[in-house]
């Protein structure tokens, strides 16, 4: 009972914190190598779906947003080191990451897929990938999945610092397939001239059971430090608002022809 009281007191405190701290300025970070979600524009600034969503949320919160470009594999440590306040970089919400940071609700859904030359008899399954080289981007959901279910079991998992480098090596034949986030591959490779002759082989993976879903994640969210509960609550409120008032759909249509939010 005492614990319950303490908990509700804490909840009340954190709820009070929403009005207590005014987030008039938010430093948001993105990677800039994940088109069309985030990339570097001709003027050197970040642009893409993530950035538009981040800016829409800031407008909704009447806060000023500044953007920071950050390498992917240092993203969470940099957030914890207070280099910025929120990660809006198409980051999947996973159990492992939740141990370090908190996430808002998802702002889109994303399966992982296997990509290789058209017509190859490959599927994202251990039996099908035995003896093959599969490229992943280090520190991503696809890396975690491949490491957990394939690595050391006859599949050679090759890790890259950047997704673009994995595409180069798929094209040049150094790896047999790429295992990546579907939207990343869609925008960064499959819909581009370089991606001609390559396609998604087998099914899109959302996770067949609880264990797999814990690795693949519950969708894409915005990461904040655990202590910034007020920021998380405000971002969630703003996210619900832009979903309701049509701003989200307006941005989505700019980049995609179909729904990406899922249900």
């Amino acid at each position, binding site marked *: 009972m005492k614990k319950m009281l303490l908990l509700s007191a804490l909840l009340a405190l954190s709820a009070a914190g929403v009005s207590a701290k005014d987030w008039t300025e938010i430093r948001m970070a993105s990677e800039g190598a994940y088109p069309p979600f985030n990339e570097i524009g001709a003027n050197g600034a970040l642009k893409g779906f993530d950035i538009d969503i981040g800016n829409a949320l800031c407008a909704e919160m009447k806060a000023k947003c500044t953007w920071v470009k950050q390498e992917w594999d*240092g993203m969470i440590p940099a957030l914890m080191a207070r280099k910025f306040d929120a990660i809006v970089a198409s980051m999947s919400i996973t159990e492992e990451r939740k141990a370090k940071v908190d996430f808002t609700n998802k702002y889109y859904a994303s399966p992982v897929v296997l990509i290789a030359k058209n017509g190859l008899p490959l599927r994202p399954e251990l039996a099908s990938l035995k003896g093959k080289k599969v490229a992943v981007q280090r*520190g991503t959901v696809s890396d975690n999945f491949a490491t957990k279910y394939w690595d050391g079991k006859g599949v050679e998992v090759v*890790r*890259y*610092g950047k997704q673009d480098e994995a595409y180069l090596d798929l094209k*040049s034949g*150094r790896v047999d397939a790429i295992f990546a986030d579907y939207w990343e591959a869609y925008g960064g490779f499959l819909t581009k001239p370089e991606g001609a002759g390559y396609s998604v082989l087998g099914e899109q993976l959302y996770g067949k059971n609880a264990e797999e879903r814990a690795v693949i994640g519950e969708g894409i969210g915005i990461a904040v430090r655990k202590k910034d509960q007020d920021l998380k609550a405000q971002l969630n409120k703003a996210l619900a608002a832009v979903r309701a008032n049509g701003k989200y759909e307006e941005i989505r249509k700019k980049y995609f022809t179909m729904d990406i939010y899922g249900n």
Partner: protein
Amino acid sequence: MEWFDPSVISGSLPEFWRGLWMTVQLTVFSLAVGFALAIPLSVARVSRNPWVSRPISAYTYFFRGTPMLVQLLLIYYGVGQSEWMQQQWESGNSFWLLFRDAYFCTMLAFSLNTCAYQLEMFAGAIRNVPHGEVEAAEAMGMTRYTVLRRIVLPSALRRAIPPLSNEVILMLQGSAIASAVTLVDLTGAARNVYSRHYAPFEAFIFAGLLYLAVTFVLVGLFRFAESHWLAHLQPRSASAQKD
């Protein structure tokens, strides 16, 4: 301790050992290949014939004037992008297929880089061989080749030991860039552990300690080599001066 979790290290030890082994291989092989090439090239470098010395000077100018990471990326990603190279790969040409392999590309870039530094070092040492030694050898009736083999090279290589020890240590630490082309060396292993556990301290401190240990071993080996082969160039010791 929240900021330092030793279980991150103990849980990833096999990965660290494999990475360390890769780092040792890359360093030792590239230094050995570089050394073997650098000796004949350094002799050519000091040649008075510009048709011999100029091309070598151009080679060292490029490889000492650009970062090793740029050279590695050029060889690995740059070469792999050419249409011609991809055709060679598809036709299964076994020589050009070597360039598809990350290990080979890294070895090639590292060897060419360290060879450029080592050969300038040796060339400098050759120029510094005392004239009297050469004249004495000629007076004994030795041919130019014999003078080179018996007098100039042994003397130059001895004098090159101290700068060579620096190059070896720089190469060990420079090999950390191998992870840029998918090789899992010690730094690559640390990066994998870091991105899996979000634990930069643990992963990089442990990798740093391993680099430090290897560096100490190398420094010890060079101390031994200097006391063995360079003893005649040391200032005479106090006890020797007494009598």
